[in-house]
Structures are given as C-alpha cells and as structure tokens.
C-alpha cells in the first residue's frame, strides 16, 4: 500500500515521508523507527505517531471459524480420480495448499498431474472444482495426445463431458527467472482475469489448479555453480513459495509442484546435542525419503530443507521393479501412450497381463497420515491397487555403507545457500549498513568466494526425463 495516497495520514505527514523516501507501509513498518526518523529528518516520536495511525487504520479483523467456513467460501477439494488415493490424501487434493509430488523420471508424476488438469474441470458434484488449470512446464510441450487418451479412458472424465484441453492453459517456464516473473505478474494477472470473467459469465471456469512440472529441473547444480548463485536460489525458493501460497489461499487453488529425486547418501550422523541443534543427517532421512519398501530410501527429494519447509504435503512416487497380474475386476488396462518417445520401457508389451507396480508414499502431510500404496499406470492414468493379500510391511530403513566423498558437503546445495546467506549477513563488520541492496559491498564480498567442484559430488541430481 502506498503511503502517499493513504487516507489516514495528514499532508504534512505524507510530505515528510516522501522526503525520506518512505513510500510503502512496508517501508514504514519494517525499517526501524530510528532509521526512518533519520531519513525523514524528524524525531522518532513523530514516526511512532505515524506508525500508530497506520496500524489503527488497519485494525485486526478476525473472523470466527463459523463465519469463515460457512458457504460461500473458497475451500474445496478435488478428486485425484482414484478413490483409494483420495482416501489416503485426506479426501483428495485440497485447495489452499501446496502439494509436492516427487519422484524418479517415469514414476508417474506427470501422469498424475495431467489427469488432475482434467479432473479439476469437473463440477463439484462430480468431485472437481469447476475450474481450469494452469500448467507451467519447464521443458518440452504439454503431452496433449496423452491428455486426450486419459480423458477418453477414465470413466468419470469421459462420461461427464465437462473436461477438455481448452481449459488447460500452458505456460512455459524454462528458467528460474521465468518462473519468478510468471509468479509475480503473468500468472496472478491471468488468474484475476479469469476470475473476473467468471463473475460476468459463469461458463468461464476460473483457475483452480496450478501445476509446476517440474521445479527440481530448474535448480540443477553443476560444478560451475557459485555460492552466490546458491544463495540467490535459496531466496528464489522462498519467493516462489510465497507467491504459490498466496495464490492458493486467495483464489482457492490447488497447487501441485512436481519435483525430482537425487541419490541419497548415508550421511554421518551427529551425536545428538540438542543445545546445538537437530542432526541434519538424521532428520532429513525422515522428511526427504520414503521407507516403506526395500530400496525406496535410496532416493531423496531434491531442493533440501529450504524447499521442504514450503510444502504442506510430500508425496513420493517410485518405480519399484515389481510386477503384478492385473486383477480381473479392474477394467482391462490398455497400454498407456508414451509421453516421451523411446523412454518408456517396452518389456511389458509381450506380457499384457503383467503390470509394472509402482509405489506411492505420503511422506508427510498436514491433512493426512503417512501411508503407502501400490499403483499402476495405464491408459486412464494412475490406478491404485487394492491391498489384496500382500501385507503392508513398513520396512526399517535399509542402510548402506557410507560413501566417503572428498570434501562432501553433508547438506543439500540449496541449504548451503541458506547457510551462506546467514553467515554473509552475520559476518559483516558492525557499523556498516547491512542493507542487502548495498550493491558495492555485496559485489566485493562475492568476488572473494569460490566453490570447488568436489562440493557437488554429493548432489548429483537424477538425470532428467
């Protein structure tokens, strides 16, 4: 909010703020009053008075839970297209949350996302949100023929007649900068536009689903990645998250972010000393990996703690190399269309009755308990297999020998970015202005920094789709 046009301030107050270049409420509230006073060349008391006026002009507006949850409201849930998966998710994909679907290439993440882009279009009675989808894609094109195939073979979608490609809007995001710009302006503007159009024409579907396919792809590190880049990227993550959460709650949107896995290395655990902190090695095992099947824990979600802190739920999908006969009471599963030529294994072409069984594990979620399910991918998308006799054992974590890497950093690259930005700020000599937009000082600081190739031995990301 701009102070110059704020109704609660007098013109002399506006003038002195303008003098000190204090333009927004943020400037006023977040910069220490002494500094504001100095910039405006008035006493702190005058600034305190202005702060008081502004805060009084924005009093606490609290709604009771009753008021908040009575209709109409933006809270909703979209079916995943599979009743078992819906149950595991806590009813389906809820709005106002950022969901992460992480896994190896060809595990089925995109399959899930593509079907969601259709399902969101269904009416609420049928389990959708009567909305359209924005599909942000980092590389390649939207696999439209696969979307058509799903829409024809998934009974709920095909019988409804409510879903089409027209309501899936694609946006390319080939780099982090593109994504950040899209989230700052393009996407919010588009969502606002559709929302406005819907108000005057109810056949226009407002955006109720945003998919990012795939975030991890944008953040690959190489031996040329500098510390400065890592710091910036850690900041990019939190900015991206802030936009996603804001859009999710403001418009009642389901946000699904696809992410990659990296190889997990057994890190040397710390001796636990709670006075210094929790062990990164020990904790990251539990929030970044799944432990429901042997071998599942060999992969961990990429992007570190800094990203894990941003998401409300983490769903991991893995190929497991197991096969099963399809059950007779499932609809005959047709071979699914390949989304990338040459990538899909064709082993199962001769053995139509044996399906590659994959595993979906909810690692954490604010709205349901951790659990684990088997699924297959067919022409209609993801099909969760019912339990049927094979017992669900939770396998204790399979440990494998610690691979000692020279100078291996025991934490994810983006978390290095967080560490470095903290120590950079803290390491500055006192007395200097610590404002991060003090360009010259920052430039000088980073000039002296370098990062060695060996840093990234531990951080090889899974090779891409």
């Amino acid at each position, binding site marked *: 909010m701009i102070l110059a046009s704020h109704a609660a301030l007098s013109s002399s107050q506006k003038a002195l703020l303008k003098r000190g270049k204090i333009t927004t409420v943020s400037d006023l509230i977040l910069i220490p009053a002494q500094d504001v006073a100095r910039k405006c060349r008035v006493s702190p008391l005058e600034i305190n008075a202005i702060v008081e006026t502004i805060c009084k002009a924005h009093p606490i507006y609290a709604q009771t*839970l009753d008021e908040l*949850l009575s209709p109409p409201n933006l809270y909703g849930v979209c079916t995943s297209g599979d009743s078992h998966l819906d149950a595991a998710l806590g009813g389906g994909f809820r709005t106002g949350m950022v969901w992460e679907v992480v896994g190896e290439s060809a595990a089925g993440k995109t399959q899930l996302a593509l079907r969601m882009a259709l399902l969101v279009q269904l009416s609420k009675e049928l389990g959708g949100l009567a909305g359209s989808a924005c599909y942000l894609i980092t590389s390649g094109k939207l696999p439209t023929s696969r979307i058509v195939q799903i829409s024809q073979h998934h009974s709920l979608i095909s019988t409804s007649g409510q879903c089409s490609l027209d309501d899936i809007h694609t946006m390319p995001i080939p780099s982090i900068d593109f994504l950040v710009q899209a989230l700052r302006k393009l996407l919010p503007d588009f969502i606002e536009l559709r929302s406005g159009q819907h108000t005057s024409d109810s056949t226009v579907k407002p955006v109720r689903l945003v998919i990012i396919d795939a975030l991890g792809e944008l953040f690959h590190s190489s031996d040329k990645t500098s510390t400065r880049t890592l710091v910036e990227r850690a900041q990019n993550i939190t900015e991206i998250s802030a936009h996603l959460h804001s859009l999710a709650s403001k418009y009642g949107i389901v946000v699904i972010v696809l992410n990659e896995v990296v190889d997990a290395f057994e890190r040397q655990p710390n001796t636990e000393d709670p006075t210094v902190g929790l062990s990164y090695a020990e904790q990251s095992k539990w929030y970044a990996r799944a432990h429901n099947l042997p071998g599942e824990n060999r992969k961990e979600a990429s992007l570190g703690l800094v990203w894990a802190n941003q998401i409300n739920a983490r769903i991991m999908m893995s190929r497991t190399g197991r096969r099963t006969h399809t059950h007779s009471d499932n609809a005959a599963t047709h071979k699914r269309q390949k989304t990338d030529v040459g990538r899909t294994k064709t082993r199962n072409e001769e053995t139509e009755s044996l399906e590659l069984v994959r595993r979906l594990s909810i690692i954490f979620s604010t709205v349901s308990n951790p659990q684990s399910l088997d699924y297959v991918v067919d022409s209609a998308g993801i099909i969760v297999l019912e339990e049927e006799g094979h017992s669900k054992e939770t396998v204790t974590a399979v440990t494998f020998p610690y691979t000692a890497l020279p100078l291996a950093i025991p934490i994810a690259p983006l978390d290095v970015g*967080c*560490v470095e930005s903290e120590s950079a700020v803290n390491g500055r000599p006192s007395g200097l202005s610590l404002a991060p937009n003090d360009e010259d000082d920052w430039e000088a600081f980073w000039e002296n920094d370098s990062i060695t190739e060996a840093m990234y031995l531990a951080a090889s990301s899974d090779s891409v789709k």
Partner: protein
Amino acid sequence: MDTRSQLLSSLPISPSTLAALTKAGYETIDDLPQSNSANQLTDVLKIPLEASTTLYSSSQRPGDIEGSSGLPSTQSAAALMGSKSKQKQRTFATRCSQIDALLGGGLPEGGILELSGPPGSSKERILLNVLRSFVETNRSVLFDMCDPRIIDEYIKDIPSARRLISYVKAGDLEKLMVLMYNLSSHIDNTFELLAISCITFPFQNAQLSNSAKNNLLEKIKQTLARLSNAQNVTIVITSQLVTKLLNVDGTTGNFDSVGAKGVMVPQLGHAYLPSGKTFRVSVALDGPNPNTAFVRLLAPFKPGNFKILPVAR
C-alpha cells in the same frame, strides 16, 4: 539459549517507573529492548531519564556467557509465573504426556510455548492439542495462519467451539507487524489463547538487514510479553528450522569447513521470545511416523539436564 532473568521489581527504581514498565509489558531485564538507549526508553515510556539510566546500568547483562555470575538469585520460569499472577494458575494439556511433563504439568496460563521442528514433525498437532484444551474449557482462541479446516476437523465435536475460535491471516511480514502492533495496543483483547502457525513463514522471504530484523523480533517480544504479563494470554507458536554448519570444535562453519556437520535450529532464534515466561520445545523425527518423536526442552535451559523422551500418541 535463555538466561534466567532478573525481575525489574527487584531493581532500585521508583514505583511509578515500575508501574509504567509493567504496563508496557516489561517484567524482567531481558524484556527490556536491548539496542535502545536510555533516552529512547525515556521518550517512549515517559519515565524520567534518571530512571532509565538506572535501569540500564543496574541491569547486568551476562552477554554471551551463559549462567554467568553477577546476577542475583535466579528463578525458574514456573516460579516467576506463579509469583506474578494473583489468579489461580491453570495449566493446559498438550495431550502428549512427555511434553506435559517437560512443562512441569502442562502449559501454564499466560505462558508461552514455542514448538520447533522439521517438516512432518508433530509440532502443529501439539499446537492443536493445546487449542483444544482451551476450547474444551470454553476459552476463546485467536489463531494466525493455520489452515482453518484443519482446526475445524480437530474441534468440531466440541459444541460451540467454532464460535470460540477466531482467525486472522498475517501471511507477510508487514501484516504480521501490524498485527503485533495492534495486539499490543489493545488493552482488552478478548481471546485467551494466541496460536501462531507458523511464525517463521513471513520472515523467510523478507529481504531485511540484520538490524532491521532484530528490531522486528524485539517488537514481537514486547507484544508477546505484554499479552502474557498484562493480559494473561497464553501463547503457542510453531517455528520452522534452518540449516547451520558446525565445525568439529562446535564453532559455526561454512561450506568449505572440512568435516563440518549440518544441524538444524529454529529459524528466528530466541530473540523474539520473552525470557522467564517461555518454554521452547524441539520436536524431532525419529522415524517415518510423526507420532513417535523426540521432544526436548530447549528453554528454560538447565545445563546437563535436557530430556529426550519418545512421544506416545
């Protein structure tokens, strides 16, 4: 880590000065703003300059050395709260017997509880348990930033619960600070529990200098102190963690420290929490199931006496 705090009432200042300080929510030396000079305190609180100066000179801050000498007899958090309040000290259950034990029986009314932990830990669940304890006894709650639906699912079996719970969303730093200011300046807040989940979210995306950030944390501390001391509001806050690298010798490392280990600590540190009223509990994961966890009391800190206990459901 928290240090024990000396009560302002034990310092050589006049009753009117003490009254002004108490009204502003300052109870112990650590509650006083650290970076402000005596002049500023005078300006803001309208107490005589000599009184301010006395305050600052007689408050012997231990600095970085914990448990240092120079402080007169210290008091435990529970004792401080007990001696202050004339009302009967209620406690509220977290429904995790181990945490209740760490807190000495439950969270005391007017106390402040910080729950920190990694993604997937049950810190939010514990906050909801406390919320439930309030609502069950017909007390009202103000919560900031939790998902209302999750709260609703938790309390919907309690009659009239929905009307006892009010919601604000201060999702960015500007809104959070305006909220803090307004909470601080209201003398008659109607809620008895303030629940914030989570306080670190608005800070993580803010591009702030260190001094600006510390200034904001100080303001939050003043608000929390005022709510807790002057209005007996109980406060529960969840906090996320940030990564730090530690050298073998325990000093802070950076990326090229050989043999450095990664640790995770609460993102905002303890600067935003009034000492003497605050319990800081760390909730760690020890398996894929969040219902088993390790909980530790980070503050009040007793050297050599931290508790590591598994949490039952």
